[in-house]
């Protein structure tokens, strides 16, 4: 299981209603159903991912977040999750607003562009970073809105979004301490538990 998903799991109440935006093949929703007895719905746009998720017996709605989420009523889910998709949507700020309208609480994870490797790559080569975690070129990447840990927290501050908890994933064994202390430098993935 992806590390960020293991972190999120503990913030989900048993038996609650969860909306997973960009649910992929449904791995996380299945985990929530099997371990937390969650009633989940997933949003996805990739045909093969949808089929894979449906094969797990999950409820999947084919819908593009960039075209809005207005069909989901206010406060209709306990938790709205968006894992590794914030950087790929057209209007991340608007999607965050919508998530917080639909869910009592939300969980967002994203790759931290402030990580020292990104900074080093850009600083020394003068080019957009390409790595194992960010395998695309600037012109063909689906990740059109990269941000850093500090960028995200500044947005939350400006929007009056309350950060309930922050968690980070580093990329080696000894970095949890570093990533916890200096997340903007050492976190590869940032995980936020937020509410209004």
């Amino acid at each position, binding site marked *: 299981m992806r590390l960020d998903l293991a972190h999120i799991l503990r913030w989900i109440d048993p038996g609650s209603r969860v909306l997973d935006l960009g649910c992929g093949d449904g791995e996380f929703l299945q985990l929530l159903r099997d371990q937390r007895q969650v*009633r989940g719905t997933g949003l996805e746009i990739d045909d093969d991912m949808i089929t894979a998720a449906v*094969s797990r*017996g999950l409820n999947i*709605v084919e819908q593009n977040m960039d075209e809005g989420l207005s*069909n989901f009523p206010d406060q209709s889910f306990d938790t709205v999750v968006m894992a590794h998709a914030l950087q790929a949507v057209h209007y991340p700020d608007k999607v965050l607003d919508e998530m917080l309208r639909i869910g009592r609480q939300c969980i967002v994870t994203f790759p931290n562009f402030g990580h020292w490797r990104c900074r080093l790559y850009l600083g020394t080569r003068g080019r957009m970073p390409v790595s194992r975690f960010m395998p695309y070129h600037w012109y063909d990447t689906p990740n059109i809105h990269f941000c850093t840990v500090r960028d995200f927290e500044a947005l939350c501050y400006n929007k009056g979004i309350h950060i309930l908890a922050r968690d980070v994933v580093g990329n080696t064994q000894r970095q949890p301490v570093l990533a916890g202390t200096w997340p903007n430098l050492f976190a590869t993935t940032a995980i936020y538990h937020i509410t209004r």
Partner: protein
Amino acid sequence: MNTSTDSQSVGIVTPQIARFDQPLLLACGRSLPGYELVYETYGELNAQCSNAVLVCHALSGHHHAAGYHAGDDKRPGWWDECIGPGKPIDTLRFFVVSLNNLGGCHGSTGPSSTNPETGKPWGPDFPALRARDWVHSQALLADRLGIDCWAAVIGGSLGGMQAMRWALEYPDRVKHCVVIAAAMKLSAQNLAFNEVARQAIVSDPAFSEGYYQERGTLPAQGLALARMVGHITYLSDDAMANKFGRALRSGTLDQGSDGDVEFQVQSYLRYQGNQFSGSFDANTYILMTRALDYFDLAREYGHDPVAAFSQATCSFLVMSFSTDWRFSPARSREIVDALIAADKPVSYFDIDADGGHDAFLMPIPRYLTAFSAYMQRVGDEA
């Protein structure tokens, strides 16, 4: 053509007839004294009677959904792409029931049947039907077959409307509701096309106010015209362009043609119309289009689809097709949105297909794969 070598066919099937002698009270206030339903079944009902699937047909459909009636039949049942061993509605797992709706013209009691009170064909005096009447009669057939609860009720187009009505009328008798290329009610444009079709029929002098059977006439021309109009709405602009384009059947574009038929699409529509008028009953067509016109899922729930779906206890699968303009993806999304707002489990797929409304009958890989994946779950929960 031949079934014996096709491992994905249900093979030769024989229709059966269920006779009901208890009067059926209809939505219109009248009641049908007694009636027959013709149906087919595919697969085996399991010991718990928990693997039964009901297939509801669309406007011009019937009970013969899969397999062949005889070894030399040219074409299999109308939904053979989706029903059979290893197909989405897998007959190795499910016991599939497919019937001809009441009011039909393929063996179930309808306008061309004899009215026991007069000894003459019902004709235009056959009672008006609503989708709920079909659902009630289907429930009585389920009783007859020993099926308390369907693993799934499935339908495309008008069949999808019946499936939704099932979910509201008999919530404890449906576990999954599969709604394909349907809508919660018709738009003004839909109503308009149906009206053109009906006018084509009634303005044919041979229609004889609907008493054509008694008078020995046949409104073949009107029925063919009705089908031609309907058929245009089943296809997409793209599908027609790909299939016919502006290809000519005779003559040249420079000088036109002295012949009757010029463009290929004309020939195709006439063929479809003539085929249909030879196998369908005009009064049934009028009755079915009226049932379609008056279908409005949420009318009795204060016109609130969310309140309507709050009655349901089943899970839903909704599917639409990108080029369907008769019941467009937007109509399906209305269903999905109401289900979400009603906190019902729902999956929705919008299938990219150029086949228009008729795409639901076609072997489109993504459609069959996604449909199969969902039916796998239905089987697991049965």
